[in-house]
């Protein structure tokens, strides 16, 4: 009988090759990284319980969940709007069982679904990030239309996606976070990488802090 060994591994285990890709030289137009060790909880308000959900969120995260497409920084977590009366709480994975804690806090007001191993978080930045994204993303990612804190639930390259803009990098470039279902992560990674090769890509691996 075949023996199975179950390992936890990233969906980008083989696709992600850290280092420089694309144009020769050291030019880096786009930075591309996978953020591992995230805790991800989808929160969906029950009918007529929006006030209770907001109150519970305020208690746990110190902020109310966003009611329009945006991302808000709370205590130990970022809350990302993902549709009417629903949001995603992203945080760094911790030793304690965060899901149980949240389930208790939102009991009766919202339904929770642990998506920690169901999604892959890809972060893309750099001076040419918008040119690269424009090749496969139909959203207007200009500063005026998509400022820091903006979020969208959309399809990118026919792939369901939650995208939001975090704080700019220290050298002033926009950073976009993309949450994608794990089974699509590999194909999306290649799409992004291929689209960005002409600008020079620095690929790396990060751990949620």
């Amino acid at each position: 009988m075949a023996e199975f060994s179950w390992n936890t591994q990233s969906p980008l285990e083989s696709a992600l090759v850290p280092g420089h890709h694309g144009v020769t030289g050291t030019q880096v137009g786009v930075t591309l990284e996978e953020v591992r060790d995230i805790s991800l909880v989808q929160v969906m308000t029950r009918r007529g319980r929006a006030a209770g959900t907001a109150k519970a969120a305020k208690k746990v995260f110190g902020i109310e969940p966003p009611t329009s497409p945006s991302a808000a920084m709370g205590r130990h977590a970022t809350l990302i709007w993902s549709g009417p009366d629903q949001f995603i709480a992203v945080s760094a994975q911790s030793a304690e069982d965060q899901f149980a804690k949240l389930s208790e806090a939102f009991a009766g007001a919202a339904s929770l679904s642990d998506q920690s191993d169901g999604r892959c978080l890809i972060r893309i930045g750099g001076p040419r990030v918008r040119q690269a994204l424009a090749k496969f993303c139909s959203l207007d990612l200009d500063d005026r239309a998509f400022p820091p804190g903006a979020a969208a639930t959309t399809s990118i390259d026919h792939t369901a996606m939650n995208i939001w803009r975090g704080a700019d990098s220290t050298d002033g470039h926009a950073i976009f976070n993309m949450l994608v279902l794990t089974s699509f992560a590999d194909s999306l990674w290649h799409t992004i990488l291929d689209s960005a090769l002409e600008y020079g890509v620095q690929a790396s691996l990060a751990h949620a802090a």
Partner: protein
Amino acid sequence: MRIACPFCGERENGEFTYLGDASPERPNFAVDGRESPDRVEDAFYDYVYLRDNVAGVMREYWYHGGGCRSWLVAERNTVTHEFISVTAAPGAGAASAVRAGE
């Protein structure tokens, strides 16, 4: 063609699925059927099978499956493809639509 989802803002039509005419109302068999079963049968035939072929503005169901997964009702001109309005479908789950950016 771009569609302004009341929750997400303007998106390309590829994110949406068209269901059809939003005007037909399901006959209430429990209420109307007691009085005249034949009339209800006709009403159901009409509701299930018959559709108007409108050249102009009609109310349509659209599903934002590539976005916030909300059911929407849109008023669209079938001749020009102009969208006159897009609102959340009644009973779709959301308490109220908050326009993107507000």
